[in-house]
């Protein structure tokens, strides 16, 4: 299928629980589609070659590098970004945990860490510190030295328990 320059591709997906459709230049990355076409600028770009993790979003629940995915690959998928975590302005257990532990400084990397932590706790609700560090080693932070972020994950686990493990 030859795609003409300047042609657009029509894609529809759910974004943070809302049905969305967008049409764009087929070569646009999912990150650019989310940020510029859908106006959801919470997802950040730190390297655009799949290492720093700031662009991590959940695609059908799986943590994915949205800078390496084409927007076209989102067709029919359920996508969650950092903007979808809070409910009516109330932080969820991971946002609250990172806030309580004062995990971040510039926080440019925080969207990636929040989404990776969501996926981590979904898969393993009670990780050890070593497991947390290993699971989060796919996200780079230049400000904190990571200790406060690990504390933030621990606090998130406590929050989840207090919320009756919903």
């Amino acid at each position, binding site marked *: 299928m030859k795609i003409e*320059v*300047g042609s657009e591709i029509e894609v529809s997906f759910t974004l943070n629980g809302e049905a969305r459709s967008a049409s764009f*230049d087929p*070569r*646009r990355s999912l990150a650019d589609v989310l*940020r*510029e076409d859908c106006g*959801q*600028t*919470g*997802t*950040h*770009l*730190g*390297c*655009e*070659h799949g*290492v*720093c993790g*700031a662009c991590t979003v959940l695609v059908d629940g799986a943590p994915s590098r949205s800078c390496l995915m084409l927007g076209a690959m989102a067709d029919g998928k359920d996508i969650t*970004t*950092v*903007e979808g*975590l*809070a409910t009516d*302005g109330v*932080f969820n257990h991971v*946002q609250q945990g*990172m*806030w*309580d532990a*004062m995990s*971040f*400084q*510039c*926080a*440019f*990397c*925080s*969207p990636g860490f*929040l989404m990776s932590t969501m996926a981590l706790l979904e898969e393993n609700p009670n990780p050890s510190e070593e497991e*947390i*560090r*290993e699971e*989060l*080693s*796919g*996200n*780079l*932070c*230049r*400000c*904190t*030295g*990571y*200790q*406060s*972020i*690990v504390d933030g994950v621990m606090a998130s686990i406590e929050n989840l328990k207090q919320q009756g493990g919903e």
Partner: protein
Amino acid sequence: MTATEEHVQTSGLGFVGQSVKRVEDEWLLAGQGDFVADRLPEGVAHAAFLRSPFPHATIDSIDTSAAKKLPGVIAVYTGAEVNANTNPFIPLIMLPDMYTPLFMPMTEDKARFVGDPVAIVLAESRYIAEDALELIEVDYTDLEPVATMSQARNPNSPQLWDKADGNVLHDGSKVYGDVDAAFAKADHVFTETFSCHRVTNQPMEARGTVVEIGQDGHLTITSTSQAPHAVKWAVAAMTVTEKAGRNFRKFWRMKERRANFKAARKAFLKEHMPAIRSQDRSGQKHQNKRENPTKHQLKMAMGLLASEDFPTVRAGDIGGGFGSKGSVHREEMALIVASKMANRSAQWIEDRVENLLDGGQAREEEFTMSIAIDDDGTFRGLKCHFDLDYGAYPSFPIGGALTQGMIRVYMPGPYRFPVFEFTSRMMATNKGKQLPYRGPWANETWARERIIDIAAEKLGMDPLELRQKNMYAAEDFPTKMVTGPTLDVTMSCKGTLDRAVEEVRGLDLDAMRADAESRGKKLGVGLASYHEAAPGPPDFLDSVTPGNGMLANEEARAVIERDGSIKMYTSQSPHGQSHATTYAQVVADEFGVAMDDVEIVWGNTDTSRFSFIGTGGSRGGPIGGGVMKYSAREAREQVNELAAEMLEASVEDVTIENGNIHVAGVPARGISYADVAAEAAKRKGSADGPAFEVVRDYRGHGDGGWSVATHVAVVEVDMDTGQVDIPKYLVVEDCGPIINPKIVDGQVRGGVAQGIGMVLYENLVYSDEGNPQATTYMDYLIPTAMEIPEIDIIHLETHSPGENDFRGVGEGGMIGAPAALTSAVSDALGVQATDMYLPPTKILEMAGVIDPD
């Protein structure tokens, strides 16, 4: 008063001293940040730069015709076209016997490093802009590369800058005391050369600028700048086009402006004449002989005098900087000029490869250290020869000249060195620009602590005792460093050293060593101490760059609106320092209100006061916090006076608790800030303007002083893989009273993490032909959560007699860590490390397990 006590988190009434949760997280953790790339104003064009693929080459021709025809392209400009519409970057801080090239936002004649911007495209999307780059044809002719400091020193190497004298841009020396006599008399002189590799700041958000052109031509610039006012004045000056004479006449006809300027000039000179007279003019004279910037300076000065519209520079949320975003960058200026030429709002959002090419590089330095020492370990003198790999273009406004000056002044450190000789050179090479990176002088600590370790080994002394023997202690104060600055009670480095030594003695090193060896690993312990002027005594900056102390000045506006709401306008540009939280703590305590009742406003040059440096140099706490405190206090006093009248009481009896302004003892009949503000507004008569407004400036003189620390690193070196693990890392730190303990802990740990990255993982390699080898994160290894250990911190808190006693802590982590780590690895291997970069291959070579290459 030298109350030193371990910091216990206070839960007193005040907010200062508490780990209050961050205000910034309310929007940042919700994904509602306002970062530069999030702005995306209507109809903005996207810029991309064509960058030289060659380290050193003449540009013979450029053909942009094909690129201009590509659908979606708005404009394509060559370096010559952009440079024709701007003045050069001119040197501000000049050293004696140093030539600083005048340089332009883009290059038109010669590519001087891989990444040098040759052309710029504005297009409807970044994708189309990058397509257009591939249609621009450029003919280069290769020149011999100048890729190492030794090649730069070779007189046969081609010159990067025609008006320089070869590629050695600076060659100077400064001697403190009778060095030759001291070295002749000493029992021993030990000499060693240490070399540090090139690294790069690498904030997670790269650079970015958005230029919005208003109907009236007014520029609103959003920039990832740590110093928005520096961007404002640089843009205003560099985009002056008319000749000096024309602007002068225009200015002369503006009677009111002329009168204001005269008055302002008179006041400035009156306040700063002694400093101006002490300035060292020899740097300017040397520069003028080679390339005289005066005609540009005159043109720009007259333009500024006559200009009636200055750009607004905004800074929203910024994703880290570590010094790299304190500069006014060439690409930023090129974008602004191109946007004006095309009369189209435009943005440049730097990508990671660009940031690794020229986002900011640092630390490629070599030190030849000589220490004169007696048999009993007494330090008799120090010599340092310092070589800096300057890269191709200077960074503006703060670059090599200031870094060199601070390395010179800091080098003796917290130790009693009676004499000191400092010689230095800076070499231009075909590399990205060197600029400040988290304690840009930090290698002075590394080189000094390394030569002290080597001296201890050669004398058969315990390196910890050797430090304790020679370090200034409380009873020595006040005194002066051999390089000039005054040391007072806040230089409490000995307290941190003694506490660190106590902690080390408390370790069962033999058991730890045996356990490590049972796993095929060698154990090593390293220690390093330093002191940092944050803000430092008044004579610190005068020792570095005489007469330029005014550059450290910081201003602030305290405003109480007519409805009683309190707004504090800071000139800081936070990018991870949490100023919205720490300043709210300081100000809430001053006004006696809750934190929610104060708003910290930053990031707009129209509403904030001038600040040259902005956020950097660990000034956020002491100077940014200090001017917040004093301007709030002055506003509070004005409120007290008016409230006293309203409450028919004397000022002394008025007190404020949680916003209730009342006569002490009678809280029930208290009034609110809204009541007092309404009364003040009524008395003012005029319909607009705030009820109270105070403008203050502050430089930290006589208040806070030094910030100090001792770092201890315990390492285990795997003798098979050369991998270094860090089972224990301790920082004993003293930055005086702390505004927010968890925020300070975060700053210390972040600095240590970058130190660990620099020693064990990060290397911005250039080949001998000048080709950068680490232009992705697959090659430039930023440490992850697996590589950074838990970092223990002990806070000591020495109080200075000064009133505002917060001392800076942002940079310290990265000043101490490289020295402590290389010391620990040397201890483990029994071989003294003379290189900063210690990857596994190097470790195994030092250990004799493998042969060097």
